């Protein structure tokens, strides 16, 4: 075991961690607005990746156009889901709502299998496939893109939630929906908007990860679970928590797979969450009780 290998594990872990963090962020946005877990979050990632591949490879559109188109379409799908499946039963119990999002996930998976078949597809890297070597660890240039986009994205989201009136309104709905409505915030519109935003985030995660990990119709479930676990570790509803939770999970998994066994790597993240929930039930970064 040398330092190059450790660096390699760390970089792989951080890359996966960023994807988990983006999914966790999507979970948080919808949870903040509606108090439900959207089990279709992983499906947004899968759809984003596959749509970008179709636009780029089959329609031969430039990468940036494919990326934006994929994100836009999935954002639209997110909004449609809210309008058609969630908003008509907004008063039902949370279990019913969770199962509805699960039904949506099954539907999207089925639709993706119908559209793309069962084969996995890959997107070419944004700037060539040439590997880069840093301190003995070999990485693809795509990893730099992923880090770069993630940093910019989290900057934008932090700005959005703390500085813009729309973002603050969403946070207000999270703290207390009834009071937010009394202050004139259209809570219902915020819910729709949260699905749109979370669809866009998931899709973006899918597009940037597609060059290093093959995309196929059934991938969403596991990604969704990991994002869900990351959100739990960090603390549901906390943006910093989503980022830290995702990164902890990604790195722990990479080292677990490297040092223990790849079969047990999924168990490691699950056990981390169980421990976090036992000792700090609100997650690492959630302030106050639920």
């Amino acid at each position, binding site marked *: 075991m040398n330092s190059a290998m450790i660096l390699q594990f760390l970089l792989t872990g951080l890359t996966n961690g960023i994807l988990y963090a983006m999914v966790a962020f999507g979970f948080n946005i919808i949870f903040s607005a509606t108090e439900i*877990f959207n089990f279709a979050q992983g499906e947004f990632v899968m759809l984003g990746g596959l749509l970008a591949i179709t636009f780029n490879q089959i329609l031969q559109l430039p990468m940036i156009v494919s990326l934006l188109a994929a994100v836009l379409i999935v954002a639209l799908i997110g909004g449609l889901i809210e309008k058609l499946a969630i908003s008509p039963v907004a008063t039902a119990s949370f*279990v019913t709502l969770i199962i509805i999002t699960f039904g949506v996930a099954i*539907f999207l998976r089925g639709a993706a*299998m119908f559209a793309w078949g069962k084969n996995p597809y890959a997107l070419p890297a944004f700037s060539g496939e040439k590997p880069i070597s840093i301190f003995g660890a070999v990485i693809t240039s795509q990893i730099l893109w992923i880090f770069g986009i993630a940093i910019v994205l989290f900057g934008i989201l932090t700005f959005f939630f703390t500085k813009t009136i729309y973002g603050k309104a969403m946070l207000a709905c999270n703290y207390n929906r009834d009071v937010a409505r009394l202050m004139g915030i259209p809570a219902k519109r915020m819910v729709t908007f949260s699905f749109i935003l979370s669809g866009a985030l998931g899709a973006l995660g899918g597009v940037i990860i597609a060059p290093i990990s093959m995309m196929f119709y059934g991938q969403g479930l596991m990604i969704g679970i990991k994002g869900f676990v990351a959100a739990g570790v960090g603390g549901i509803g906390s943006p910093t928590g989503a980022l830290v939770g995702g990164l902890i999970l990604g790195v722990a998994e990479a080292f677990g797979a490297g040092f223990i066994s790849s079969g047990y790597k999924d168990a490691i993240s699950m056990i981390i969450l169980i421990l976090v929930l036992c000792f700090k039930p609100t997650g690492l970064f959630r302030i106050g009780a639920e």
Partner: protein
Amino acid sequence: MRRKDLIVVILLSVIIFVVPSLVKNNYYISILVFFGINTTMAIGLCLLLGYSGQISLAHAGFFGIGAYSSGILTVKFGLPPLLGVAVGIVLTFMVALTIGIPTLRLRGHYLAMATLCAGEVMFICFKEIDSLTGGPSGLPGIPPFGIGNLVLTKPIQYYYLAWILALGILCFSLNLANTRVGRALLSFRYKPLGSEEGALSVGINVVQYRIKIFVLSTLFCTLAGNVYAHFMSFISPENFDMHFSTLLIIMIVVGGMGSIWGAVWGAGVMTYLPELLMAFKDFDILIYGIILIGILVFMPEGMYGCLRQSLRRFVVKH
């Protein structure tokens, strides 16, 4: 048990014992065996979720513990099936307490996450302890269930076994629902149906009740797992993954969470639906998703709950 429930139970028993004389096809009998097995588990989960308001995404794992206890003890050690059942019960009891005591203090979403993780850990164990479980490729050659000279080999015998178990658990649960324990469980359901603070204030030991009902519902799953392993004679980890835990919750949500009859109804619908959709080949999951969303959007109280409501409205009107 209330008289209304008793009448329906008797009716159901009569139907169950008449059906085999009408249905001779082994394929249909197998579906009915699965219906019985799923009913057993759905009733357990209904007591947990519908009555005490605790969600669990780990129940497929306990189903797996039952199935693997039966499978491993009979295949690897050549012990009698009844011993597998006993070991399954003891193991489940221990695992359920280990999971339940720390996690059942959590509420709603946090409990969903903790149990999801616990279920995944069990699933990974089934997959990775391959010297015992056979790993991802599964455990074949499980002998039929039997006590002494009585060995169950035909699907129709498993049909009776599965349904006698299901009926027993149904009667037990219907009784439980109308006792002090059942009413106590109802008192601390999630808001607005119940209130934990309210329950505590009248002296109900909420945490203890939660753990007890959790363990009870996992025991139902283990028994179902025992029957399943001997009936299928082959088990593999993906029968016991998170999908199946979710499917169990789907059953009671589709049926109607508030009532044990809803769980029976939901188990029937969700067992039969995939078989019905097989005609659509690759479209099946697409249509399955649409049907699931449709049922819940138009009947958020579940199919049984909706039926009961419209019946009541009809009675009031006339």
